[in-house]
């Protein structure tokens, strides 16, 4: 079985993971139009090569990012989402 390395839990069988789609840069919700927003929500680039994807370790509901070559299916590395999302992007609960 394929093994994927979860940044929190370590190497696990691929059956413990759920694919979450490509990582997309979110357009500015205030200035983007309907088309741009629909592309962000619904469309993938489907690039042949190295892409960055969301993966979830199902047993812990832990989401992280992976760089994967879609041609060779080789996973270059997996890493915490905090590496790409700064503290400033964190959504704070309303007071």
């Amino acid at each position, binding site marked *: 079985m394929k093994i994927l390395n979860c940044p929190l839990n370590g190497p696990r*069988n691929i059956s413990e993971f759920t694919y979450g789609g490509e990582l997309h840069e979110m357009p500015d919700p205030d200035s983007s139009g309907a088309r741009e927003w629909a592309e962000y929500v619904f469309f993938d680039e489907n690039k042949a090569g190295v892409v960055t994807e969301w993966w979830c370790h199902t*047993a812990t509901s832990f989401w992280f990012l992976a760089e994967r070559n879609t041609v060779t299916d080789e996973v270059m590395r997996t890493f915490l989402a905090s590496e790409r999302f700064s503290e400033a992007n964190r959504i704070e609960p309303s007071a």
Partner: protein
Amino acid sequence: MSSQPESLLRRSQLTQWHIAHDAVFESHADRSVVAAYANETVDGPGLCDLSLLPRTGLKGRGAPDFLASLVSDLPQEPNNARVTKDGTIVARLSNEEFLILGSLSFDSQVVADIEAAINSAGEKAAYPLPRADSHCLFALVGAAAADAMAKLCAVDLRARKFPPGAIAQTSIARVSGVVISHEFGSRSGFFILCDTASTEYLWRSIIDAIDEYGGGAIGLQSISTTD
């Protein structure tokens, strides 16, 4: 007061299984727990239903600091557990998530104290993650426990790779669960938790797995006497 499950408020989902296997019950406050089975002769790994053991959890950015104000010596790294002086098990499931299991004596106030503190502290400190009704809890004890678990779980749970205090959050018999390595007195073993909806399935799966090693169900007395 009778310790029979019918006369107490809290009983395990596996009560009918326990009764069918001649369980002898004992009461801990309003909980009916299997003390032993009438013909309990287990040579191999023993599986004990601890689903009524008090437990709770908390999560959130403030969880480590909040819990540190109540419990000393928290595990510093995710997927590690520590046992406090009174036998409470504090398991760190991620940087911001903790699971707390009460001591096996069932008389610890720590879990109730933590729950009360969370509820009175407000949302900002941490949010409660109750585990008593969401998850079942088993203990699997005995030298061959890791060998038996190898039939159900892909993570290497042998002691040299998975020492006491180690945690694996993984798939057990195709069900998501948590395995915590723990020393029950002089015997090694595991706490095993999974979603409460899979309680009966996982219990029967582990019973089936340990049967090959001469194992079977054991009551709380067998766990306690290993101390």
